[in-house]
């Protein structure tokens, strides 16, 4: 299936926390393709899609971070009014829940790319594909 591997990094809410992550990734020559920061009052979780997830995990762990992995889905969204809505409509009909989503940095032709985390990943991919949307495979996303 066309899943994308997202890495998550646990961060305490304190100055310099995020800067250290980006420094470790820069030093390892890793390119961040998409990111989102979820925060609570006490801590944050940085979600990243990078060009080399394995290497990123390895260098982050070496530097003492707690790193998790999550399967997410990258979907091509028509870059016009109602584009995102058409996708959510298809999913909502099938009772798929979006846990969170964030936009990709780059466009792909006439499309924007949105990263979704669903409660039922495989089923969501199936529905999206059947409804005619393009789900991007991991390799493509990492190297766009």
């Amino acid at each position, binding site marked *: 299936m066309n899943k994308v591997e997202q890495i998550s990094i*646990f961060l*305490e809410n304190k100055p310099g926390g995020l800067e250290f992550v980006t420094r470790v990734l820069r030093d390892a020559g890793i390119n961040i393709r998409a990111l989102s920061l979820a925060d*609570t009052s006490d801590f944050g*979780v940085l*979600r990243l899609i990078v060009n080399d997830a394995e290497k990123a995990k390895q260098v982050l762990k070496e530097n003492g971070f*707690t790193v*998790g992995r*999550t399967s997410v889905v990258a979907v091509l969204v028509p870059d016009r009014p109602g584009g995102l809505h058409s996708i959510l409509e298809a999913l909502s009909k099938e009772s798929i829940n979006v846990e969170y989503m964030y936009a990709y940095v780059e466009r792909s032709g006439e499309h924007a790319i949105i990263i979704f985390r669903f409660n039922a990943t495989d089923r969501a991919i199936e529905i999206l594909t059947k409804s005619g949307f393009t789900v991007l495979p991991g390799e493509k996303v990492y190297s766009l």
Partner: protein
Amino acid sequence: MIYNEEFETLPREALEALQVKRLQQVVQRVYHTVGFYKRAFDNAGVKPDDIRSLDDLKRFPFTTKQDLRDNYPYGLFAVPMSSVVRVHASSGTTGRSTVVGYTKRDIETWSELMARCFVMAGLTKNDIIHNAYGYGLFTGGLGAHYGAEKLGASVIPISGGNTKRQIMILQDFGPTAICATPSYTLYLAEQGEEMGVDMRALKLRVGVLGAEPWSEKMRQEIENKLDITALDIYGLSEVMGPGVAMECLEAKQGLHIFEDHFIAEIINPETGEVLPEGEVGELVFTTVTKEAFPLIRYRTRDVSRLVKAPCRCGRTLVRMDRVTGRSDDMLIIRGVNVFPSQIEGVLLNIPGIEPHYMLVVDREGNLDTLEVQVEVGEKVFAETGEVKVLQQLSRRITKDIKDYLGVSTKVKLVEPKTIQRFEGKAKRVIDKRTI
């Protein structure tokens, strides 16, 4: 005023003669009824007959909180359960609390000692006592309640919590005395002020406050805010509950220990050696009249000092200094006793938690706060990397600690390897409170 003039003003010689007689009896009794004491005395090479003077007590072995836990729940009871009319317990992890029992006569003794405390605070049967100690397994609520009834005063059994209602009752019911922890009393005073109530205008005259260490400064603050006299009461469930010792209104200088029921010693906590009068060390109690749960040389871990000099109130009973600290790592959070090891026990029962934690104790306003810092390890995070998993973990820790230990905490998840590692004895507690 003195409730029991005869026993509270005995000349020291007569008092000590009474203590020896009662000590001989209790030592005989525990030796023959409690297996733990028989083994402990035999191991130490002492026999009940060895008690010929008070000085002989120091040859007998100590009893510790761990001994109480090891004999959970009823192993140290000296009477059959058919003679036990009530049990109380202190908090503990997963059921391992310390359980104490009382016969009908024990309850009567306790009630009398609490009545003595109230009289020592200047109260009579004409007083109305607002009892904000918690009712339940904790000894505070029922202990003070029975004492107040014994005295013939009117009790308002309000128990703890529901502060707004407490303030309303303080205004409407017109209590003249309050029993509570010092920190809760101060909290009540401040909440009342915030609600626009003139807390100095209440009928309250006296506070009988205890169950946690407090300072002279805190006393002044309470006295100012409520326009009352605030007195210190001491006790612990193992020895009986509140009413082991009480400060008198006349001198307000040290707490009179009811020596006709308890023998107090001060020891060096490192060596166990008994220290001369006036030296600071760990308080050790032997109960000489308790039937259901007698204790021989129980190490309280409370740090204090004993003074035998006569008191201007007329009592001949020895006085202990207000407790200034602990000789172990026990924390008292809003009146609840908590050992770091108990929190560790709770944490280790939660899957995915790293065995590294730090406890930060502080005081916000006048209420103690406890923050538990826990490292977020791979185990809990790697599978999903989701925020909600961490939030669930945080809630679970708070709930489990509350359920098992009865204390509210704030959980702070921290990055791995950020909590200091220790090679020797770990320092798990940062206590920022200044008492």
